[in-house]
């Protein structure tokens, strides 16, 4: 199990990447900043960086509009 934004729970699986977490949450917003255990993940690495079981993942949407 991993925790997203200190609140939401996502089932973990072997080899789970940052992109898998985004997909599991249904997040395809263009302006998202990702952290794993507080460390920023570059966008180019979303598809390759794996997320260990029990991680705290931050998927932060930047506001726009208005």
């Amino acid at each position, binding site marked *: 199990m991993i925790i997203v*934004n200190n*609140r939401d729970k996502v089932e973990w699986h072997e080899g789970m990447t940052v992109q898998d977490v985004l997909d599991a949450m249904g997040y395809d917003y*263009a*302006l998202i900043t990702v952290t794993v255990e507080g460390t920023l993940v570059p966008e180019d690495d979303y598809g390759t960086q794996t997320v260990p079981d029990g991680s705290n993942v*931050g998927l932060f949407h930047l506001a*726009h*509009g208005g």
Partner: protein
Amino acid sequence: MADGKINITINGIEASVQKGSYLLQALRDNGVAVPTLCHHKDLTPSGTCRLCVVEVEQRGKKKLVTSCNFPVRGEIAVDTESERVKTHRRVLAEMYLGRWPNVPLIQEVAAICGATDKEKYRSELTDENPKACILCTHCVRACDEFVKERILDFAGRGIKRHLTMPFGEVDPHCINCTSCAYVCPTGAIEIVDDMNNPVNPQMIRDFGMKINAEMATLDKDQCRMREVGTANIVDVMDAYDLLPVHNYKFGSHPDTKNIDSKILKAKYFTQDHPDGCWKGCSMACAKAVDGFELRTGPYKGDRVVVDGPEYETSAAGANMGCFDADFIVEWNFYCDTYGIDTISFGTCMAFVMEAFEAGVITTEHTGGKELKFGATEAVMECMHEIAAGEGFGVEVGQGIRYLKEKWIRELGADADFLQDIGMEVKGLEYSEYVSKESLAQQAGYTMAVKGPQHDEAWLIFMDMVNNQIPTFEDKADALYYYPLWRTWFGLHGLCKLIWNDIVPLSNKDYEPQVAAKVPDHVEDFFRFYEGMTGEPLDEEGMLAQSARVHNLQRVMTRMLGYGTRKDDMPPFRAVGPVTAEEYESRAERYDKQLEELAGFDMKGKSTEEKMKAIREYRMDQYNRVVDAAYDRRGWTRNGVPKIERLRELGIDIPELVEIIKDDQE
């Protein structure tokens, strides 16, 4: 090999580069210098000057290519210093030197290429001006790519090629962005007129060009403001259950696809050029529909230009259950033509429709109109009545607060129900976002001085999705900073869209709490302010400027008879589910919240009991966040600025103190 990488050889040394990247950039990333005159980091490579040629060997064949626009797709061996390359560069540089011998950039690049003889290619075409145009195409590409205009281009062929505007005249479509002068490497294009007499024009141009470059390179992968304008938000809000549907009952709908940015782009938008609302702005977010044939009203049958639709207009369509783009464009046109706000009308009509469906009013009261959700023809009819001052339109045109009071007074309607579903605060209709799942946004709406508009605070993602401001104090901090920051735009007559509807790549290097403020763009606005006024500004200074005005506005609101806690109370629809239908539609969410956060025992409870419990829980939370926000702002628990706060801000003048002195704790 990592995803997207490819091995190439550069001057005999193996290197790994991004597949599809341009060779010049790959060479520079690997520390290999290549001379060029026409390359610019923010412009599409053009291969114009041909100085960046290198020798590429692929499948045993060697050829010279311009590296700036050569995409690396396969394994290649690159030689940047072969005799063939060096000769090619030197001869070209000698030609440039013969044509423009005194331009410093030409001299510099010629020296790198080993060209020193200014006389070899000297001719009657030689231009001795040190600021001569060298035909690099920077300005032509900037005009096209930054601003989406083609005002500058070349005329003449061969040696007579020269830079000009259409027919050699100043083109009225020029938006004065100064991009051309900014990217000109020789000074051939100069700015001769600085409007508004800024203290430091260069500082302002630096700011503007940074935004122009970001718009040209980043917008297509971010908010797509140039492509579809604010209509992009329709898609996002529907995906996150935040698009108001049926008077804010729900946050998404299967038919949103009929009014989203994709359909507007595919079938309606015809204009995507800068509309000149701000001199020099290249965001070009305003869209328009050309040749739209009206089906109703005094202009029925006419083909017209429609300015829009923007997000709020499409979203108001969803709020009325009208998922019909033809209707939205027509309604948009008549709102503009009649001078009616699409938000106020849309939200008011959504309220009317819910009241109609709930039996509060009938066709007897609407002049025979079946005003159910989705009744596009009845909406248009009502709109024309508003403009003509006839029928039921006269009543709708006076807004939700008026209708609530009238129906309670004259029809004996259920006052609590109308208060719950009438989406207005301080007499102003809500703008088009569902705030139920964001406590901070609930207060952001209600505490906004003019009424529930999101232009003081749009905190939904920070709060609901990101969970970045979990405590009441965190939310209160956001309700302190963001309204003051957004007030600052209004104070200076600036548009906020270039603050966070385009975000620099560097923003991902900041911790999320900092990133939410888009700090580099905040700094840019401070530099812009300094460029105009000559006075430096920082966050503390900005907050002080805004807080003075914001508190003054709140005192004036008090003077007008509003401005206390009761005026900051939301209709419950903005906070949680009013009807069983609403609760059941998101039952999993509400049940979970009741159980996990409110500690409510769910066993054997009916929907009505759960609705009562969630109302109590959410209103308690709402009141707590308002308490925290009032404290943070230096206001009393009744929402009135404390006299000591006015003193801190230097606005404790007797006239203002007199207005609020009886409200002090």
